[in-house]
């Protein structure tokens, strides 16, 4: 797992087109990743303005923007974003904390591994959205339903990657530290945890993706507020611009979460040559 992780960490930097990247980033650093989205939006706008794309199916970016402006003024958009964000974070915190705790415990102790791991492996194979009907029966369309589904979805990627990260810490390093009389606490703090971090971050970023996915679906099915609800509600009234707006907002929130995780990853894994500045 760790090897794969590091492989992933190494690859993208090397694979980026170096000449284009360098030529552009020399002049406008930070703008390169936005080129493709900008082109897509420009084409989309052009297509809509020329009447090639029907507004009933896909309104122009300008209309989506206008809808966004309108709903921001009315307070509807910020409120729904805040609600969705809060749901995402609380689900993530509950699921992530449990997963991290069990991942560490099972990575460090064969006893708790024997006790819980096979159960987790069984439950893991249930797609979390398959639980939606049951969860609605249990919680109705309360906050509990969203919290449960998000926490459930976030749990497994973090659990598995934490577990494998801890298990795959180089045993030679552990032996070295022990041979210098490093006790369990410092062994964990200085060797095991930093060694497991690259793998934990893979789980974290994967979990963030699942977090949004689960939230979108549960908000469209069982909610009376939030971005997903806003989109479903708009669909009933054929307000396509708001539906598209909701999708764009999800994309931006997802990107934000991923950027935050990357930033944290870079800061924490500065020792790893894969994260050194080019």
């Amino acid at each position, binding site marked *: 797992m760790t090897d794969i992780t590091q492989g992933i960490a190494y690859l993208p930097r090397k694979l980026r087109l170096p000449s284009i990247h360098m030529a552009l980033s020399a002049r406008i650093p930070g703008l390169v990743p936005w080129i493709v989205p900008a082109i897509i939006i420009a084409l989309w706008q052009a297509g809509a303005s020329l009447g090639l794309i029907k507004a009933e199916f896909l309104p122009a970016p300008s209309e989506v923007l206008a809808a966004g402006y309108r709903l921001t003024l009315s307070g509807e958009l910020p409120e729904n974003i805040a609600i969705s964000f809060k749901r995402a974070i609380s689900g993530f915190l509950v699921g992530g904390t449990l997963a991290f705790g069990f991942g560490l415990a099972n990575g460090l102790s064969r006893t708790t591994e024997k006790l819980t791991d096979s159960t987790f492996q069984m439950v893991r194979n249930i797609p979390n959205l398959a639980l939606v009907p049951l969860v609605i029966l249990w919680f109705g369309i309360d906050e509990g339903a969203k919290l449960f589904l998000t926490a459930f979805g976030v749990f497994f990627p973090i659990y598995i990657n934490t577990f494998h990260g801890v298990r795959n810490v180089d045993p030679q390093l552990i032996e070295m*530290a022990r*041979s210098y009389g490093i006790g369990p606490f410092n062994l964990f*703090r200085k060797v095991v*945890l930093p060694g497991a971090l690259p793998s934990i971050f893979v789980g974290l970023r994967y979990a963030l993706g699942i977090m949004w996915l689960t939230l979108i679906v549960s908000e469209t099915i069982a909610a009376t507020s939030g971005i997903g609800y806003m989109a479903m509600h708009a669909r009933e009234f054929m307000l396509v611009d708001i539906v598209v707006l909701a999708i764009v907002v999800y994309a931006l929130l997802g990107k934000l979460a991923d950027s935050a995780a990357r930033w944290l990853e870079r800061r*924490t894994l500065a*020792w790893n040559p894969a994260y050194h500045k080019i």
Partner: protein
Amino acid sequence: MLTFAAEIGGFGHEAPFIPPAIAEPEPERPAALEFAVYGLTKTFSGRNVLDSLDLDVRAGEFVAIIGRSGCGKSTFLRLLAGLDSPTSGIVAFGPEGRERHGSDVRVMFQEPRLLPWASIAENVAIGAGDRPEPETRRNQAALALGAVGLGDRAEEWPSVLSGGQKQRVALARALVSGPGILALDEPLGALDALTRIEMQGLLERVWLDKGFTALMVTHDVPEAIALADRVVLIEDGRVTLDLRIDLPRPRKRGTPEFAELEREVLARLMQRAS
């Protein structure tokens, strides 16, 4: 991890290298330690890798261990350091033949085994174990890094070092622990010839300076003769040659006496091979 980095952060700028004169006195460390091994046996899946091995090493002695690959040299060092336990036999330390204490034996492994996520200084400070407070750890690490000629690299990551430099950091780490006995398992095996000779010089200086008991596994007969007071050959799980090297230090390779000893040891090794 973050607090850990912060703890040592800035250390390189505030105190790049503390000259021995101003540094706190080194904490008391165990003096060179003698040890004796009686009837040491280690069995792996029914095969006696070590078979009733006896060896007696004086305090401060430098002993080189040679022997063909797989004869049990590493196993012997691991048993001595308590990283593994013997099937039978006794390992006794000190003049009174007591059991091993935690800090008696330190091992310098064939691989540097540096923590890639800790700065070079913090890697060296690992050698101080859990106990000392941050201040002492830093000073000790700086001293030891200075001793191996890497005083100015304290704040860098290990990944930027060359193979020989990594081994020097590993040596500094072992020195910080103030070992009574330092067991070195082919520490220079992966180095090129020139770096190797430099490292041999460094090892000898450090050993003369600190006075620990040194036990070094090597495949290089000239290296054994250049450094050791005794060359010990392990064959069939026991000591079959124990040769005292009385050449004055610093030793010069290529003198007739040196060449004669080298021939003697090689002949003894070959005798078995044919």
